[in-house]
């Protein structure tokens, strides 16, 4: 492993009632911190002054025109699938240079979906070189650094933050038109780190992926709340796995029922752009399993048309502004 682990800060006692949070600026300094067993841990953990690495990161990312985060509070809604299809779609335009970064450290899926599982990352004195899937599509994932595919990455947050910083600081992307950042589910360390480190170099915005049922929308609302707190513009909401057309009788069926109106209603409610719905097509999953581009294999399927509409809407929103 190339990754240098950072020491794990661990709290020795539960936090007091009005704990400002160990990650906050006032950790260890607030009134409620007095007498807390964690006080010294919290106050020593906060770096003093701006992080010197942010300058390096800004420098690295300054050649990237558009940076898009793919987010969803919920797991398994198709963040990685959509990220991979989005990057295939963008890279189909030969004039564009595209990069994809996989921040899901505990469950990296992009190497498999883009068909480059067995590649490994090379490092040179200009930094780590991304793995190239096609001539104009580069990718970086923790998946390339594991000794074998099955080994688990059992890391606490602080260690993950270290790796994310290194991805941003040391990967030599060169000049890119688009950098797509695929994230794990939730609103935790990975999300905080990537937004903090990339803030100064400018993030175009976030693409929110959801599925139609309320259980998923619940978590997606939390993610949207997170974007607002972190000041990230939301480019739009995509509803994945919308309807399913039975190959036997051609009837459409809602497998994940939009009991509360699905992604469209959520977008309307919060005043966000709704970019479109992508129907459930078993061939999407199959091509992801085989690492092939769904859009190339089935260009005429309704799902492809829907996806391309979303991609167009996204490009308009990013390039138009």
């Amino acid at each position, binding site marked *: 492993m190339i990754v240098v682990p950072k020491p794990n800060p661990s709290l020795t006692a*539960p936090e007091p009632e009005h704990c400002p949070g160990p990650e906050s600026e006032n950790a260890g300094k607030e009134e409620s911190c007095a007498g807390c067993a964690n006080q010294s841990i919290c106050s020593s953990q906060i770096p003093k002054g701006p992080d010197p690495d942010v300058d390096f990161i800004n420098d690295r990312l300054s050649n990237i025109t558009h940076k898009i985060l793919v987010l969803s509070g919920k797991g398994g809604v198709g963040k990685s699938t959509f990220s991979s299809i989005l990057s295939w779609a963008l890279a189909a335009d030969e004039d564009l240079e595209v990069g994809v970064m996989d921040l899901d450290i505990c469950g990296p899926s992009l190497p498999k979906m883009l068909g480059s599982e067995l590649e490994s990352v090379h490092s040179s004195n200009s930094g780590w070189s991304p793995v190239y899937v096609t001539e104009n599509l580069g990718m970086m994932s923790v998946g390339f650094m594991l000794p074998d595919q099955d080994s*688990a990455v059992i890391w606490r*947050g602080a260690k993950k933050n270290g790796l994310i910083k290194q991805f941003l600081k040391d990967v030599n992307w060169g000049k890119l038109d688009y950098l797509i950042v695929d994230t794990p589910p939730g609103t*935790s360390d990975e999300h905080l780190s990537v937004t903090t480190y990339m803030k100064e170099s400018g993030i175009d915005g976030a693409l929110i992926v959801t599925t139609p049922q309320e*259980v998923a929308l619940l978590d997606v*609302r*939390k993610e949207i709340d997170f974007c607002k707190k972190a000041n990230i513009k939301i480019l739009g909401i995509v509803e994945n796995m919308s309807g399913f057309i*039975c190959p036997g009788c051609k009837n459409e069926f809602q497998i994940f029922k939009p009991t509360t109106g699905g992604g469209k209603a959520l977008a309307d409610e919060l005043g966000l752009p709704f970019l479109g719905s992508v129907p459930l097509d078993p061939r999407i999953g199959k091509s992801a*399993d085989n690492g092939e581009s769904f859009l190339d294999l089935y260009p005429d399927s309704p799902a492809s048309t829907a996806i391309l509409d979303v991609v167009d809407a996204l490009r308009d929103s990013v390039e138009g502004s």
Partner: protein
Amino acid sequence: MSAPDSLKNVKHVILILSGKGGVGKSSITTQTALSLVLKGYKVGVLDIDLTGPSIPRMFGLEDAKIHQSTNGWVPARYNKDLSIVSLGFLLGSKDASVVWRGPKKTAMIRQFLKDVTWPDLDYLLIDTPPGTSDEHIAIAEELQFANPEGCIIVTTPQQISISDVKKEINFCNKVNLRILGLVENMSGFICPHCAECTNIFSSEGGKNLASQLSLKYLGAIPIDPLFVEMIETQKDSSLLDSYENSRLYLESFKPIIDGVLEEIRE
């Protein structure tokens, strides 16, 4: 070191794990809880998915609260045999995000295990978030001396899911957590119009994985839109009653829960 105090009234602890998100950990947890209650056991559910708690909605308890008593936190009650603890009960609004880094999550989980006063329980089910990170390390550490029975691993049939699940199995081996068995969820969809079964997320992936790693294969559960409907309409008809008579329970889940119980007895 000894087991956390809150677990002294609990006979068996079972975790529900999966490396992958959205495969149905929470719905399997819900179904396991309902099935055990139907079998006459007293059950508790602890939801440690802090940034995306789904358990309150699953049981239609979104407005429930956890109360503080002199002995600690009192779990929310679904009925007299089923108590539930989730961070969702402690949040003000359902839209509020919980943006916490690792140490705070670890502290929260520690508090869940230390401060909750569970009633007498036959089974405590612990629902987890995806991945192998802070929450998992924390729960494994806390349960170290509590002799958990083991875990149920949930997967969906496609390759992408299988590779994440392999990582989770690897994690279980590292922390010496026994694997009670593997459940394949979303295994095929039976069209209600023509009864043709389509494998939306391919098929047999979980079964193959189980035989490859010589784990017990507990069974497959098809995609059943009726379950979602039961969850969403439980205000009108009790979830427990509609589940008891559903095909999902009778045909798919009953054999699975019998498999789990058999494994525990051995």
